[in-house]
């Protein structure tokens, strides 16, 4: 319970700082902190495989890509927004208020459907945690129920690789 609040607070604070602070290099590093906190939350949710995948792929590969681009483009200082643009003081405050309103609406919508079920996450609906997170079960589901999505994802990755190389080349 304590761990949930610890990881949750770290994740929320890190994500807020990602969005609010000025230096994109620090934003990338704070996002990595947020990912690690979320991986801790996944371990609390009996999903060690999801946690490790989060760290290997998100924090270990995607964020390295972001870091490379930030270093390549020398983007470690943000341009000051010109006056009257969307991030002067007024729009930022209105945006923050609207974000709070959005949060309240989402929480209300997500939580009010809870009355129909009870005891979730306290007992789990029938599966014991040992087999829930097991990689064997995950692999079985992945390759039988979701086999089509798996194959399509492989095509997606090839397309993304080719697309990224083509888009970033100087001359074709």
């Amino acid at each position, binding site marked *: 319970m304590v761990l949930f609040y610890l990881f949750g607070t770290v994740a929320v604070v890190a994500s807020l700082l990602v969005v609010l602070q000025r230096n994109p*290099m620090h934003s990338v590093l704070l996002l990595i902190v947020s990912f690690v906190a979320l991986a801790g939350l996944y371990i609390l949710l009996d999903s060690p495989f999801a946690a*490790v995948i989060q760290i290997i792929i998100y924090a270990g590969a995607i964020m390295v890509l972001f*870091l490379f681009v930030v270093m390549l483009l020398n983007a470690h200082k943000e341009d000051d927004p010109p006056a009257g643009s969307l991030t002067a003081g007024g729009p930022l405050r209105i945006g923050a208020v609207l974000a709070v309103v959005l949060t309240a609406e989402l929480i209300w919508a997500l939580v009010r459907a809870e009355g129909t079920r009870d005891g979730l996450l306290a007992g789990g609906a029938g599966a014991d945690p040992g087999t829930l997170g097991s990689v064997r079960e995950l692999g079985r589901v992945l390759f039988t129920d979701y086999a089509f999505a798996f194959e399509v994802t492989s095509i997606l990755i090839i397309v993304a690789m080719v697309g990224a190389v083509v888009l970033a080349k100087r001359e074709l």
Partner: protein
Amino acid sequence: MIPVYFAQVGIIFATFGLLLLAAAIMVYSERKVAAIIQQRYGPYLVGPKGMLQPIADVVKLIFKETLRPLGADRLLFMLAPLISATAAFAAFAVVPFGAKTTLFGLLDTPMSLQIADVNVAVLVIFAITSVSLYGIVLAGWSSNSKYSLLGALRSVSQMISYELSYGLSLASVIVVAGSLSLTDIVNAQAGTWLGFIPRWFVFLQPVGFVIFMIAGIAETNRAPFDFPEAEQELVAGYHTEYSSTPFMMFFLAEYINMVTAAAVATDLFLGGWHGPWLPDYLGWIWFLIKIGAILFFYIWMRWTLPRLRYDQLMTFGWKVLLPLAAVNLIVTAAGVIYFGY
């Protein structure tokens, strides 16, 4: 008698101490073996046969002045060696180095010589190795120096390229062993065939072993893949601008990464702590012997082979090693289905 809790805390401290000792022994033996290969004496002044040389090195490094370049980002500059060193130590937390033992009857229940027996241990090691990249790239970036930045970029792109082959050869072992937990993988290698050939995975997966060793050498930035720290070209790569204690942490992180890579290779391919004449609870002696052999091989490679140029290195990693690892995985999977293991 003693609750397992105390033994677990004891194991943590013991492992930490042993890792530091292993790093010190590596420093000394690297210089001594290099000297023997190059037909000269090595360190011989400090202590008997120069064995206290690592202590002298550490003392010298601690007493140096800690410098920081002018334009360096202060937080990241201090954070980078911490990330490197922490990730290096953390990866060893899930590596088992002995069988379940009751420590000569002191404990109630047998405890495995492993800090955390996670059932996705192989992936945890992979994940922590991925995180240790950040120490290098942050060191290179925050030093505000061209040698550091080039060295860091080269090093990180080399490491992420060879991580793919590393992962695929890991996947082949997982297919054969049927589990992601390192303890299970080691226990699947107990026993012998025909009475004298041990059931190690290196005999079932020779190509996988070679790929894993090459990728491990590339991951730890050792020769012949140490272009990022090539002294002739880049001064010292990503740790050019670091001086006393932060430099020592990078140094330490490199040696402990080597020890971890050797330990993981031993657990995955060479049977871990299983060996012929010793009982299981003394298996850690075999573990140390195997790690010693692999580390000797690392040092031997460094002082024998010439360094690969950066584009040769990347070509080798992407065009040779990765297809080989993928074919190895497919053949392994086909073999497991056909022969059943």
